[in-house]
């Protein structure tokens, strides 16, 4: 670019519409000049880098079609609006809906029978204790997070006296809830694991399909849900694990599978484990509902404890969003169960290198709350009671919805509502029916027909039952 050009090229900044056209007409502006051009570099990008032609007529014409950029142009001019997240977008749409009887059964956040969010009493007490303690500060946590939290989370998942815990071969790092734990674990595996391929069940939580590829793992699938039975396709799952390469990473939902609510039986878990161990595959557990599935923390941990007990290695992404109601505080932990304490130590060191360029260290508040609750025997026992209360209310909603559909004689077999486990019911409704229910009844759920039972209440069950009944009878 000549000096004259350089001096006047600044005219384009921030100009819009007519001003922009006038500015270009009145000054000299390079055609197709803009970011990425190298000075003196011919033929690069859009219209060539070295600019010496200025044709006002063609400039203005091109302006109309937005082809030309007057320098400097926005670095983001070519960005399109990103699509809404399929799950979080449901709440966005719900919030926009002015209808007074709208019902949000989208995102899996627990609601009381009055339809309100619920902050656990033990959380409030822990919070009050923290606020009142002036000796507490807000310093950076270590990269691996709050040590007390890590220790207690590990104990919660595996059991305090689990041999793997006692032998110091588990590296646990605090992460940003389940998502953050999955992402950090996956990035570590993509960098250090010999077979950077992960198999996820069909279907799985939508965000799995984003997290793993972004982290650098190749994403493949194994059969899981059987639409015909609305239960587990156990034979298909075993077949696909057998057919998967030796050493692949296998994503497993520890309990309360999301979105289907279909879990393997204990003896099926044993069989799954045998295959995975025979194939030397790496199990990566996603545990977001411990305590929410059956109401019992230990029962819900059967799968991951049995894997951790057989001497093999595994990974665990643990979330406290649901079972402690700490959704927005982003509290979770990644545990890498290794064969030896030495391996665990090395792994922890490398995990820090993944975390540091992502967010340096995890947030303090939520972890401090969890550590307070888990570390106090009284609070811990009270928590278990509240947790069971939430799980029981969900089971009650299942019962009520089932009865309501039976009472209406709604076509089809609805026993899966009772059999499925955890926060969600995979209704079996199709996208057209889902859209119909949103349009006519202002009932919001994810497009795969997943409803959050936690969003139902005694008073809203009839409305939902009516909507399902209508959809099933009248919409293909």
């Amino acid at each position: 670019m000549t000096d004259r050009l350089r001096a006047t090229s600044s005219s384009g900044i921030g100009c819009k519409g007519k001003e922009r056209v006038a500015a270009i007409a009145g000054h000299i502006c390079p055609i197709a000049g803009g970011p990425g051009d190298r000075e003196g570099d011919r033929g690069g990008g859009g219209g060539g880098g070295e600019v010496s032609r200025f044709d006002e007529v063609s400039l203005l014409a091109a302006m109309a079609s937005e082809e030309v950029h007057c320098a400097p142009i926005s670095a983001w001019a070519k960005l399109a609006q990103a699509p809404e997240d399929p799950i979080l977008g449901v709440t966005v749409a719900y919030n926009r809906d002015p209808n007074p009887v709208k019902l949000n059964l989208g995102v899996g956040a627990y609601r009381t029978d009055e339809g309100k969010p619920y902050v656990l009493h033990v959380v409030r007490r822990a919070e009050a204790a923290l606020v009142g303690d002036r000796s507490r500060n807000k310093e950076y946590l270590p990269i691996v997070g709050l040590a007390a939290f890590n220790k207690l989370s590990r104990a919660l998942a595996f059991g305090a006296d689990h041999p793997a815990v006692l032998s110091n071969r588990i590296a646990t790092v605090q992460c940003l809830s389940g998502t953050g734990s999955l992402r950090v674990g996956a990035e570590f595996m993509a960098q250090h694991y010999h077979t950077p391929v992960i198999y996820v069940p069909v279907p799985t939580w939508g965000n799995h399909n984003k997290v793993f590829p972004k982290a650098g793992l190749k994403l493949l699938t194994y059969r899981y849900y059987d639409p015909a039975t609305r239960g587990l396709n156990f034979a298909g799952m075993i077949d696909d694990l057998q057919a998967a390469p030796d050493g692949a990473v296998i994503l497993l939902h520890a309990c309360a599978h999301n979105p289907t609510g279909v879990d393997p039986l204990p003896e099926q878990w044993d069989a799954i484990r045998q295959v995975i161990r025979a194939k030397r595959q790496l199990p990566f557990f996603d545990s977001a509902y411990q305590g929410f599935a059956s109401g019992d923390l230990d029962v819900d941990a059967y799968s991951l404890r049995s894997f951790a007990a057989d001497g093999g290695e595994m990974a665990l992404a643990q979330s406290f969003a649901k079972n402690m109601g700490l959704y927005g505080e982003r509290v979770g932990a990644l545990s890498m169960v290794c064969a030896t304490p030495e391996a665990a130590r090395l792994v922890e060191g490398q995990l820090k290198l993944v975390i540091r360029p992502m967010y340096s260290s995890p947030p303090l508040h939520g972890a401090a709350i969890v550590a307070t609750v888990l570390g106090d025997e009284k609070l811990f026992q009270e928590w278990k009671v509240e947790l069971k209360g939430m799980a029981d209310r969900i089971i009650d909603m299942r019962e009520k919805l089932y009865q309501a559909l039976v009472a209406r004689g709604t076509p089809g077999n609805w026993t899966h509502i009772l059999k499925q486990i955890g926060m969600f019911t995979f209704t079996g409704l199709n996208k057209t029916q889902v859209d119909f229910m949103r349009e006519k009844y202002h009932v919001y759920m994810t497009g795969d027909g997943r409803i959050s039972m936690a969003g139902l209440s005694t008073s809203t069950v009839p409305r939902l039952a009516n909507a399902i009944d209508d959809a099933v009878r009248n919409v293909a």
Partner: protein
Amino acid sequence: MMMQEAGRHVARAILHGSGRTGARVAPSWSGLMSGSARCISGSSVLSTWWGHVGPAPKDPILGVTESYLADPSDGKVNVGVGAYRDDNGQPVVLECVRMAEQRIAGIEYMEYLPMAGMKRFNGLAIKLAYGDDSPVIKERRVAAVQALSGTGACRLMADLQHRFRPESQVFFPVPTWSNHLNIWRDANVMVKSFRYYNPKTKGLDFEGMMEDVKNAPNGSFFVLHACAHNPTGVDPSTEEWKEVSSLFKEKNHFVVFDMAYQGFASGDTSKDRQAIRIFLEDGHQVACAQSFAKNMGLYGQRIGCLSIVCHSEMEAANVQSQVQQIARPMYSNPPLHGAHLVATILSDPGLKELWLKEVKMMADRIKLMRSLLREHLEGIGSQINWEHITKQIGMFCFSGLTPAQVDELTKNYHIYMTRNGRISMAGVTTKNVEYLAHAIHTVTKAQK
């Protein structure tokens, strides 16, 4: 077909209790589960997938505090990590923060924030960065996403750059905060550098910087420290910023301002954002990675904001939607508590006023420590020119100490700092400043 049959057979056999031959049996933890656990990998129970994983190098900054904490000696001094300390060397929670915390405890739900974070927080954060009456805010041209403090904001920016400007490179001053390089590298953006610090003058190499800016390809991305450059404490003057802005316009470079010390540099939050103001007045569309770790003492809360000034309201919406897409597979949505605290403080005139006073107090204490350290060094007869201690701005002093001298300070005096000679003035107190001066003088006596 055969494989599938075999698989089913195995599954059935296992389900009915018959184990495979050649299995090694791990100890049965009958207290934990029904049935016995069998490890049938066919190889040693103790084999690991991670044996090849090497020991990770210690983080050059955070590793310093780890070493300091491990040191049992009395009188040890930590001038490593940039976290503010009071004159007793104690961490500080600001009064405005305590009050905000009391106010919000027990009253808010803990629901998920949107992916872009707390809207109210974002709105207040960008007003602080760009000015309450900023035209770009009035015109709704600023995409703002709550981020995990400064690191998180930088990472979102780096990932956005990689995704939508993959051909671009990013330029950092030499030296810069070490984690900048990790962040952009992990985002797979090519990292370059431009001259910045002049070791001879211990000030700004303005000519070198301008030359390197000029020689960079048009439309490159630059990360500039808005104020209180880390680690050197060397900032351009107002006039120099204006010249930089002009040159950047000619080159159509994109600027990311890393602003981690607004209020900490001069004690005045408005003054400390002058670089951003100059660039905005010149019509640049800048980005800003903003942190509240230091100026609100919210280090552990991880609260910051990435904002990007766009061409139009629509473009800002598009950009924001794309940044959200980067957050979703990283952590879904940002943490609530820190955003609540900042929003409470900034939206309440009384609390905000208190905060501004407290920030100025912190900045003033640091300025005082700078004076004291320099006075002591000069007073005990050091022949070295220590002018830079009081000229440099913000939390850090780039002392000019060599790695060998730093190691000596650590080994013999239990004084901890990063090996580039960066002293965190926030760790200096009236109680340790003399000791520090003597130690520095001793290890530097040999040089001129």
